[in-house]
């Protein structure tokens, strides 16, 4: 697996995959896509980087413990649901607000925050599992 070609290409591949995962996350708003798939793509990018550069390298690059990322994601997803407390609506009701930047109308919603939370949860847990398994292999 650890050929020079792979090691050279991996960083570029990882960068593209992470950007693509964010694109999929935002696209999931009205079209197929969303936080879950986006998170999976990002996690597989991290797994690829782990194979190419080694797990310790990935941990250094991530700076934060993957499970902490997952915890943060769960936290903001829960908070997004709690926002509707202020709007006299049940838990997890989607709230929308619009504002304009130049000519473009931008829609912001609690759904988006929730989806980002899902993205982070998936990214965190899957990469934690992947890194743990890769570490196991390296140990032998």
């Amino acid at each position, binding site marked *: 697996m650890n050929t020079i070609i792979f090691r050279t290409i991996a960083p570029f591949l990882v960068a593209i995959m992470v950007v693509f995962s964010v694109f999929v996350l935002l696209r999931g708003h009205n079209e197929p896509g969303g936080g879950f798939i986006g998170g999976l793509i990002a996690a597989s990018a991290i797994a690829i980087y782990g194979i190419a550069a080694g797990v310790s390298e990935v941990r250094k690059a991530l700076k934060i413990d993957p499970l902490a990322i997952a*915890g943060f994601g769960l*936290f903001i997803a829960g908070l997004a649901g709690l926002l509707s407390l202020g709007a006299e609506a*049940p*838990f997890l009701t989607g709230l929308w607000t619009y504002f304009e930047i130049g000519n473009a109308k931008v829609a912001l919603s609690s759904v988006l925050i929730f989806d980002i939370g899902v993205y982070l949860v998936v990214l965190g847990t899957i990469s934690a599992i992947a890194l743990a398994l890769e570490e196991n292999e390296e140990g032998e």
Partner: protein
Amino acid sequence: METEIVKETLVLPKAMIEVATSAADWLVILPVVLALLASALLLMLRSTTRGQAVFAILVVMAIIVIEVQLLLKILELGPQSMTMGKWLPPFGISFSVDVIGASFALAGAIVTLVVLLYVQADIAKREVKYGFYSLVLLMLAGVSGAFMTGDLFNLYVWFEVMLISSFGLIIMGGRKLQLDGAIKYGFLNFLATSFFLAALGFIYGLMGTLNMADIAIVAADAPAGPLAAIGALLLLAFGMKAAAFPVNAWLPASYHTPHPAVSALFGGLLTKVGVYALLRTLVVLMPSAREFLDPLITILAVATLILAPLGALSQINLRRAIGFFLIGGVGAVLAGLAMPSMRGLAGASIYVFHSMLTIAALYLVAGLIERMSGTDDTRKMGGIYNASSMMSILFLVLIFAIAGLPPFLGFWPKLLLIEAGLGQADSVLVVALVLNSFLTVIAGTRLWSHIFWRNGREGKNSEQLNDRLKPLSKKDKWFGIAPTSILVVLIVWFGLFPNSVIDASRTAAADLLYPERYIQSTGLALDVEEDDLEVSQ
């Protein structure tokens, strides 16, 4: 977003809730949300060990306060519901809480609080970093969610939340013994939830809905054959979760392996969710399937009631013996399920409540005994009465409570169940219930006399003192005995003054037998009536 683009007017049926939700309605969902958010926060800050314990304890206390309020509100006004995301049920996922849901969730939170206090005596920094508090809160969220949800698929999700957190807890420490137990626990519980999921598939295929209140309406007209098959599958799945005979083997294989506090948490919370799900699905949702399965449930109840204390009699491992007492309790609840009268169901619901508190307390005392004697073998424990008479009292009270002797809480549900059996002339169940109490007293008092009454270890003269006993440190006394005593005081208090519990259980049983109030709380039955009115006009 594109309201301007679509010109034609659409005629859509009403799908959204238009009434404003007041902050008071949030009582239904807050216990779960708080536990989930706190768990996420602690997972995020895993590496900072300071303050985690205090934060977790405060959160669980807040949850207890909220659940007490919720229970009082339900007792006064009837079941409470909230449907997520403003969607009308059955489209949105409902949380519907009636008396049994709220009271079991409350008992679960109390047990969690006691366990959190108990671990303060000996928790290592490594275990905090591992995420102990986060996992405990996640488990509490899963258990409360399971007790409170009004949607079957959501129930499945909470089951899995519980399962994931319990996996984490059971292997915490990573001893070989734990790995062995975790393999059996993991495989069989995963199998049980898979069967539950398969039953969900059938339910959706047959009735086209997964909202519990909606199923209760639709199942009344569903064909009997498939309904009975679904009921049987649910009985297998939840019976496995609850550790009923003959699918109970995983429990005595695994519950004695983790830290005693984790055992207490599992014993107090996990099997009870399986039992609760049986009551909810077979009594409320599909009474006709329950009627069909009635002979089978009776056999299972009798077998569980009698075989479990016999299992306890043959154990030399203290916590394994307690595991068998726990299984015996499941038999008592199954007996209630086999006699779905007001008395039978009231007895079953009090039994679950009592068993959550008592079994957890028993595991906690067992943990202290193991800590003092440095072994899990009851033959080598003798002489603890000399070292700590307080513990011997706690243990004996708990044994009597489990067996169902007055004046402890365990007496009342047994009494109600036996009354129900006599009322229905169901002599087999009555005999089994009495025999269970009898055998449990024998097994329990024998444990007591081996551990406390004997002066020394087995094989030595009785006068020879056990010199390997370590006296409890001050920390152990404060964080070990004091929290356990809270549970024991509750058990004695409710045993001496059972009126409030029995009144609540009557309401609970009525809501289980006649779920109209439960269905109405979600807003479903009212719609049906409106439709009927339109048709008749």
